C-alpha cells in the first residue's frame, strides 16, 4: 500500500483535495446562508437591502458548487489513471526477472486474475481512500472552526459526531470488512481461474463427462463468491445506518444548544436555523467515509498481492559485477545437478561439453531432464551443484542479457504473440527482410502458411489460428532466424513429416552455429550429429551415458505409406 501512496503526484493530489473540500464547504455554506436568509426575512427588517449580502451569498454558493465538484472529479480521476498506469508498468518490470522459470510454476489463471483485477482495485487507493480522508480532515476541520464562532459546545458535538462518522465507523468497518474482502477477492480469483481452466480444456471437458465435473467445481466457487458478497453487504448495511443516523444527533444538538442560547438571549435568533442547516451540510465532509473504508480491506489485500507478486525471488539474477561476454561460444556442463521443486527426476552429476559449431542431439526417455538441460544452457535455471559455462565463463558471472543474446531457444510448445506472423518471426531479429522470412518458413515446411495466413496476417490470440504443429514450427523458424550463435531446440521435428524432418536436420547440420536439440528420433540423424543419451531416471536422477559413436543410418523418410 505504501509503495502505491509514494507514487501519488503531490501537486495534483493537493489540488484534488482542495477542490473536494471547497465543494463540501460550499454546500454547507449554501444551507447555512439560506437558513439565515429566511430567518432574517422573517424578522421583517426595514429594507430588503439588509438581506442583500445573504441573497448574494446564496446565489454565489448555488452557482459555484457544481463547477467545483466537476473540476474535482476530473482532477482526481486523471490522477488515479496515471497512478494505476504507473503501478502496472512497475509490476511488469518486476515480473520480467521472474520469467521464464518462476512464472511457469504459478497457476496461470490465478496470475491473470491477480494482475488484472488487483491493479484495477488499486484505482480505489486515491478515489476511495486518500481523497475522502483528506477532504474529511480539511472540510470537517473548517466546519468545526466556523461552528465554534457561534457555539463552542456545538462545535465540540460536531467534532465528536464527525469523528464517530469519519474514524470510529470506518475503523470498525475496516476491522470487520477485512476478512470479508479477502474472502471475496479469493472467491473472485478462484472463479476466474476455474473459467479459464474450463475454456482451455473445453474439448476435453465436453468430450469427457459433458462438463459435469467442471460445472460442479464452478458452482462451488460461485456459491462461495455469493456468500462472501453477502457478508460484505451486511457490514455495509450497518455503516449505512450509522452514516444516516449520526447527522441526526448533530442537527438535534444544534437545535438544543443554540436553541437555549437563543431562548436566553445570548445568541442572535437568525443563527439558529443557520447553524442547524450548516451542521447538516457539513456532514457531507465524512458522509462517504463509512462506505469507502469498508473497501479498504479489499484494496489493501490487492495491494499486498501485487507487491508479493513483484517480490518473488527470481530463479536467476544478474551478477553484481558481471564479466564481459566471452569471445567463444563453447558450452560446458560440469558435474551439474538440478533438484526440481516437485522432486521430479532431473540431471545429476551431468557432464557435457559442446564445442563451438558442434551439433549435439540430446535423447533419452521421457522425464530424463532433456528440456532441463536446455533451460540450464539458456540460464532459465541455475544448477544446484556444478556449473554451466559459455566460452569458459560461468553463466552466473555474465549478465542475463549477454547469455540470452548468445542463444536462440525454441521450446516444445512455443509461445506466439497475438500479432502478425511476421511480427512473431521478427521477435528474433528486427531487421529480417521479407525474403528472409519467406526463406526461413520454407526451411521448416511452412510455405503453405504464406497462402492461408500470410506474413502480415493475424495469427490469433496465442497463435490459435495455427495448428499445434504449425505453431511449433514457427517457434523453430524464429530460432533459425535469430542472429544468436547457439541454437537450443526442443523437439523441433516432432511435428514434421519425413521429408521436412530430413531437410531441417540437414540444414541445421550444415549451419555454422552451435546446435543443441532434444529429439526422440535419433534414426534421422547422420554422422554430423553427436548423439548424447541421458539415462532413464533411476533413483530420482538422470545421468548422461558416455556418448557412443553411432553407426550412421541413412536419413530415411517417415510416414512413407501416407505422404
Amino acid at each position, binding site marked *: 500500500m505504501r509503495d502505491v501512496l509514494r507514487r501519488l503526484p503531490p501537486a495534483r493530489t493537493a489540488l484534488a483535495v482542495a477542490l473536494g473540500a471547497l465543494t463540501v464547504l460550499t454546500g454547507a455554506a*449554501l444551507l447555512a446562508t439560506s437558513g439565515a436568509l*429566511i*430567518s432574517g*426575512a*422573517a424578522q421583517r427588517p426595514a429594507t*430588503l437591502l439588509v438581506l442583500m449580502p445573504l*441573497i448574494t451569498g446564496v*446565489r454565489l454558493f*448555488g452557482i459555484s*458548487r457544481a*463547477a467545483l*465538484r466537476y473540476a474535482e*472529479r*476530473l482532477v482526481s*480521476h486523471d490522477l488515479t489513471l496515471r497512478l494505476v*498506469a504507473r503501478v502496472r508498468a512497475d509490476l*511488469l518490470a518486476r515480473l520480467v526477472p521472474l*520469467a*521464464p522459470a518462476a*512464472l511457469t*510454476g504459478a497457476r*496461470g489463471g490465478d*496470475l491473470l486474475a491477480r494482475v488484472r483485477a488487483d491493479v484495477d482495485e488499486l484505482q480505489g487507493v486515491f478515489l476511495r481512500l486518500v481523497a475522502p480522508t483528506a477532504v474529511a480532515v480539511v472540510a470537517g476541520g473548517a466546519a468545526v472552526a466556523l461552528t465554534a464562532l457561534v457555539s463552542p459546545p456545538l462545535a465540540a458535538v460536531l467534532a465528536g459526531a464527525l469523528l464517530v462518522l469519519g474514524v470510529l465507523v470506518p475503523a470498525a468497518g475496516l476491522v470487520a470488512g477485512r476478512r470479508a474482502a479477502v474472502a471475496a477477492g479469493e472467491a473472485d480469483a478462484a472463479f*476466474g*481461474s476455474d*473459467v*479459464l*481452466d474450463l475454456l482451455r*480444456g*473445453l*474439448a*476435453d471437458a465436453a468430450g*469427457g*463427462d*459433458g462438463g*459435469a465435473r467442471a460445472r460442479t467445481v464452478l458452482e462451488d466457487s460461485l456459491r462461495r463468491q455469493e456468500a462472501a458478497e453477502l457478508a460484505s*453487504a451486511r457490514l455495509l448495511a450497518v455503516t449505512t445506518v450509522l452514516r444516516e*443516523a449520526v447527522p*441526526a444527533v448533530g442537527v438535534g444538538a444544534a*437545535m438544543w444548544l443554540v436553541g*437555549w442560547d*437563543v*431562548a436566553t438571549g445570548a445568541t442572535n435568533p437568525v443563527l439558529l*436555523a443557520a447553524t442547524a442547516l450548516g451542521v447538516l451540510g457539513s456532514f457531507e465532509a465524512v458522509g462517504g467515509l463509512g462506505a469507502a473504508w469498508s473497501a479498504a480491506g479489499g484494496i489493501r489485500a490487492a495491494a499486498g498481492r501485487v507487491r508479493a507478486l513483484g517480490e518473488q525471488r527470481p530463479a536467476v539474477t544478474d551478477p553484481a559485477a558481471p564479466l564481459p561476454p566471452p569471445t567463444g561460444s563453447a558450452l560446458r556442463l560440469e558435474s551439474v545437478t538440478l533438484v526440481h521443486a*516437485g522432486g521430479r527426476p532431473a540431471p545429476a552429476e551431468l557432464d557435457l561439453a559442446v564445442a563451438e559449431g558442434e551439433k549435439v542431439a540430446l535423447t533419452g*526417455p*521421457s*522425464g530424463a531432464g532433456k528440456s532441463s538441460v536446455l533451460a540450464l544452457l539458456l540460464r*532459465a535455471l541455475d544448477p544446484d551443484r556444478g556449473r554451466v559455462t559459455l566460452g569458459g565463463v560461468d553463466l552466473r558471472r555474465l549478465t542475463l542479457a549477454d547469455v540470452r*543474446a548468445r542463444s536462440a531457444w525454441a*521450446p516444445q510448445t512455443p*509461445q506466439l504473440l497475438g500479432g502478425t506472423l511476421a511480427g512473431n518471426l521478427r*521477435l528474433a531479429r528486427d531487421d529480417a527482410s521479407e525474403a528472409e522470412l519467406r526463406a526461413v518458413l520454407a526451411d521448416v515446411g511452412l510455405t503453405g502458411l504464406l497462402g492461408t495466413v500470410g506474413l502480415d496476417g493475424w495469427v490469433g*490470440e*496465442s497463435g490459435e489460428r495455427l495448428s499445434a*504443429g504449425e505453431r511449433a514450427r514457427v517457434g523453430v523458424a524464429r530460432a533459425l532466424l535469430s542472429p544468436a550463435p547457439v541454437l537450443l531446440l526442443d523437439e523441433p521435428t516432432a511435428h514434421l513429416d519425413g521429408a521436412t524432418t530430413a531437410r531441417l536436420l540437414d540444414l541445421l547440420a550444415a549451419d555454422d552455429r552451435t546446435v543443441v536439440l532434444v529429439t*526422440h528420433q535419433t534414426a534421422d540423424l547422420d554422422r554430423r550429429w553427436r548423439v548424447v543419451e541421458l539415462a532413464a531416471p533411476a533413483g530420482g536422477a538422470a545421468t548422461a551415458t558416455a556418448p557412443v559413436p553411432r553407426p550412421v543410418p541413412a536419413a530415411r523418410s517417415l*510416414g512413407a*505409406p*501416407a505422404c
Partner: protein
Amino acid sequence: MAPRPAARGPVARVLARPGPRRLALACAALAGLTAVLLVVQWALVAAVVSAVFAGRATPGDLLGALAEALAAWLARAGLLALRELLAARTSARTRHEVRSELVGKVLRLGPALMAGEQAGELVTTATEGVGKLDGLVARLLPGAVWAAVLPPLLAGTVLVLDPPSGALLLATGPLLVFFLWLVGTLAARSAREQWTTLGQLGAVLVDTVRVLPTLVAYGRAGRSRRWLADVGEAHRAATMRVLRTAFLSGFVLEFGAVLCTALVAVTVGVRLFSGDLELQLALLVLLLTPEFFAPLRALGADRHAALEGRPAAERVLALLDLPEPDRGTAAVGPGVPHVRLSGVTLRHEGHEVLTGVDLDLPPGSRTALVGPSGAGKSSVLRLLLGFAGPDEGSVLVDGVPLAALDPDAWRARVAHVPERPWLLPGSVCENVRLGRPGATVAEVETALARAHLLDVVRRLPQGLDTPLGEDGARLSGGERLRLALARAFVKDAAVLLLDEPTAQLDPDSEAEVLAALDALARGRTVLTVTHRAAPLALHDRVVPLEDGRTAPAPVPGPAAVR
C-alpha cells in the same frame, strides 16, 4: 402485449429478471415509507426551530417533538440500510445465476465457440463483465425506483404547502431529467468506445504476461514495457474523454439542484419579508427542497455504474444469445457403431478445410488418417466428436446423422485422446475419472496400469491423489499423453479417436504405448490421425489426407496383412 425479449435493451433485460423485478417492488414500498418519514421529520424540525426563533418556547418545552424528529430520522436510516441489503442480496444472486448460465452456454456450444471468441475476452466477460451487472442491479435499479417515487411525493407535498415553491420544483425536476438524458446519451456513446479500448488493454496485459518467458529469452521485455506504457496512456486519454462527458451529467444535476435550492431560499425569503408566508412553513419548504433533488442526484452519481454496466450487459447477453446448434435427441444404439463420413465439406473462416471427404469406419475397423500437418486431420476428429457440423455432406452413425444424436450420449461412447491433452488442476485420480466420473479407484488404477503410467503415479508424493498443478505441470509430455490414454481406458468407449498418439514419446515409451493401444483397440472402432510411421502398425487401413481431400481408395495397413 409483453415485448419480445430481443426487442428490449440489454439493461432492461437484465433488470426484467424475476429477482430484480421483486427488488423494484420492494424498493417502491420502501421509498413511499421514506417519503412519509421525511415529511414528518422535517415538519417537526421546522416547528421546533420556528417556535424557539419566535421566542414562543425553549428547547426544553419541545423535548417531545425533538425526540419524535430523531426517531423518524433513525427509522429512515433503517429503511435505507434495508434497501441496500436487499439490493446486494438480489445482485449477488443474479450474478451467480448469470454466471451459471454462461458456463452452461459455453459447455453447450463446446469448442466451436472458441474458434471465434478469444479465451481471455470470454473470461473477462464472465468475471468482470458479469461483475459490472452489480452496478445495474444493486445501484441503478434501487436508485431509479427511489428517484421515480420520492420526488413526485415530495413535490406534491410542497405544492399543497406552498404552491409557488411546489410549482418551481415541478418545473425544474422534469427539466433536469431531460438534460440528464441528453448528456447521458452522449456519454453512453463514448463509453462504448472506451469498453473496447479497455478490453484491448486487458488483452495486451494478459498476452504480455503469458509470453513473458519468450520475450525475456529474446531480450524483448524492455520493449513490451514501453508498448504497455503507450497502451496505458491511450487508455487514460480515452477514459478521461468519456469522463469529461460522463461527469457533465453530474454537473447539470448538481447545478440544477443547488441553483433550485438557492432560488427557493431567495423567493421564500422575499415572500417572508413581504409577510406573505409563515417562517415554519418556509423552513419546511426549504428543508424539503434538497430532499426532492437528493434521489435524482444519487441516481446521477450511479449513472456512472450504469454506463459501465450497459456494455457489460450487452456482451453478456450477446454470449447468452449465441445460437446453439440443434441438440439431437436420438438415443445412441448399443454396440460398436458403423461411422461414415460421406462427401463432407467443412469451411472455416472462408476457406475449405475439408473438401468432399469420404471415410468409412466399419465396426471394429482400425483406420489411420495420414497427412502433413494442416491437411485437415484434426477437423475430421472435430466432426466425429460433434464439435463441428459439416457444411456439406453428412456424418452418419449407423446411418443416422450425427447431428440427430444426443451429443452427450454420443460423446460418452467416444474416447478422444488429443495430441496435447489438457489436464485439470485436480489430482491424478480426478483426471482419469474425467473419462468416466463413476469409476472406482481400482478401475482407475487398472486404467493407469494399462496406460503404463501406474508406476510413475506410485512414485509421486501422494500417489493417485497427487495434485497435478495447472495443466499437469508435474508430468512430462509423454506422461500427460499416457494419462489421457488412461482416461480412454477407463471410459471403455466404442469408438476411439487418437490424435498423434505417440508424437511426444521416446522409442521405449512409444513401444509400450502402442502395445497398450493395441489392447485398448480390441473390439472398438479406431481412427488415428498421425504423420508418424510407428503407430501405423496398429491399423488395418491407411487413408491419406492431403489438402482436405481423401484419396479415392484406402491402402491396406500393416495390421491387415497379419
